[in-house]
């Protein structure tokens, strides 16, 4: 070791707890905290990007959004889309994980296949879904009709667009939930199961009274992990419908993007983004409470 570097090494050794995280913390401060601060500042202003300067208007933006019909629509779409997709992903993920929770030939293949939808570029697969869901030439309607069912309008219909988008989201994310729950199931203790079997418990009783309570914290954790992205779903909805037809699939998040980058209203857009953040925050705080209380049992 060169003598010149010794004082530096000694300094780094002594203040390791400070020196090691410092660059990352500074970087995060610059790229994350400062923009969030700027965003918060903008919420109190009225400003069209490219025209003049931000003008301070206090809580004007927040008062405006209370009576904005597209905000109410965005909330409704968000609750509908996220509620349905998160519920289905969790239930299906759990059921499929229970199905695969055994030793079998090909379990490695299943695991490999189930990683692909999660890793695949959202925009790319969303475009393929857009082709598949085309009401006239799409393969989905062809498959429906070939088993005697009527075709659907899918993402082209005002009333079918959300269920169709939920289907795409469920397709992309259920496999990931499955893999997480499966890993959780594999790590469960054996003793309660043996005791239950000795007592002659039925398969359903074992699931309801043993597996479900034990796997509950994993389910909530998976839900939290998934909700972080699901409540802010952008790529898939933007690529497939851009919020349409009309505004029938425009989530609050998508609307905030439109206000910011189609209408260039920086202040009002920022206020909407803060609302989205608060929804994500409240949801996760509540879920975390639920998870901690479940773990204490």
């Amino acid at each position: 070791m060169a003598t010149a570097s010794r004082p530096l090494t000694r300094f780094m050794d002594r203040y390791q707890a400070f020196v090691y995280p410092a660059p990352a913390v500074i970087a995060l401060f610059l790229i994350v905290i400062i923009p969030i601060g700027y965003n918060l500042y903008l919420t109190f202003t009225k400003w069209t990007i490219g025209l003049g300067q931000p003008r301070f208007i206090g809580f004007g933006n927040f008062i405006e959004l209370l009576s904005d019909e597209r905000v109410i629509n965005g909330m409704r779409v968000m609750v509908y889309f996220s509620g349905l997709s998160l519920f289905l992903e969790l239930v299906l993920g759990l059921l499929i994980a229970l199905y695969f929770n055994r030793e079998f030939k090909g379990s490695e293949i299943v695991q490999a296949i189930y990683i692909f939808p999660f890793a695949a570029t959202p925009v790319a697969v969303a475009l393929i879904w857009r082709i598949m869901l085309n009401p006239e030439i799409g393969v989905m309607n062809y498959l429906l009709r070939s088993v005697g069912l009527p075709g659907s309008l899918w993402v082209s219909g005002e009333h079918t667009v959300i269920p169709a988008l939920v289907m795409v989201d469920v397709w992309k994310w259920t496999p990931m939930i499955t893999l997480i729950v499966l890993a959780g199931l594999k790590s469960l203790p054996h003793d309660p199961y043996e005791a239950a079997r000795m007592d002659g418990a039925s398969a359903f009783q074992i699931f309801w009274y043993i597996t479900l309570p034990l796997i509950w914290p994993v389910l909530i954790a998976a839900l939290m992990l998934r909700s972080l992205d699901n409540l802010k779903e952008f790529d898939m909805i933007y690529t497939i419908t851009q919020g349409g037809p009309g505004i029938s699939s425009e989530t609050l998040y998508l609307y905030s993007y439109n206000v910011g980058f189609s209408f260039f209203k920086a202040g009002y857009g920022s206020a909407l983004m803060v609302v989205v953040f608060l929804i994500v925050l409240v949801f996760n705080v509540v879920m975390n409470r639920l998870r901690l209380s479940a773990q204490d049992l």
Partner: protein
Amino acid sequence: MMSKTGTKTLKSILFHVGAFALCVPPVFVFVWMILTGLKTGVQNIAYPPEFIFIPTLENFRAVFQQYNFFRYLMNSLIVAGLATGISLVLGLPAAYSIAKYRQGKIGIIILVARMTPFVSYLLPWYIIFRYLKLIDTYTALTITHLIITLPMVIWLMISFFEGMPEELEDAAMIDGCSRLQSFLIIVLPLVRNGIATSAIMSFIFSWNQFLFSLILSGPKTKTVPVAVYNFISYGKIDWAGIGAAATLIVLPVSVFAFFVRKTIVQGLTMGALKK
């Protein structure tokens, strides 16, 4: 005896049929993507859809020659490579320190970074980069991608560092290593699985990133998700081109994910079960 093994075999067959059925939906979309890329434009708008046809590689050629796709692939590779490299250099020591000294408070910044909608960063960054004339540069894209990849690397690595035996490091210190040497020579090789996983996760998420690139990239730095999205805004939608381009985009990340599939799940689970 015979009938007992008979029912067992039947059960096993039924199980495997079910397992196969559960793998059809994930695979089907990818098969359809590849088929779309291998069909001509006319075949792609035929109804009923054609399942059997003579494949053509024409679309893949067109994607490179007409749409200049190689350039976009390189852009994505550069940005994802830079974002991943910087995230590792900054994130590894930070995660190590957080795990070792229980600096949970730093975790709060990471949590905030994860929860904040990307659009909230995009608007300030767009205004700043416009002012600094940095729109359509690798700098702008890399900085914004770091918002995603740096917290991800730290978050994943904390659990890998926590799972590491401390004795080995102590032994190294007794042998006269400095803390820096022991970190570089002893600790990092011990968590190489974790490093590979977080590097690949970081690469995948940067490669897949759409929103930041949609606003902050331009003709010079357009990344592949934006490039393929633009296939539909040229008026006439080129389905065959989209199929070929989508295949090219998804292929590298799928291969990466395949190689670290076990540790990705491990990383996600450990992350999900923390605190």
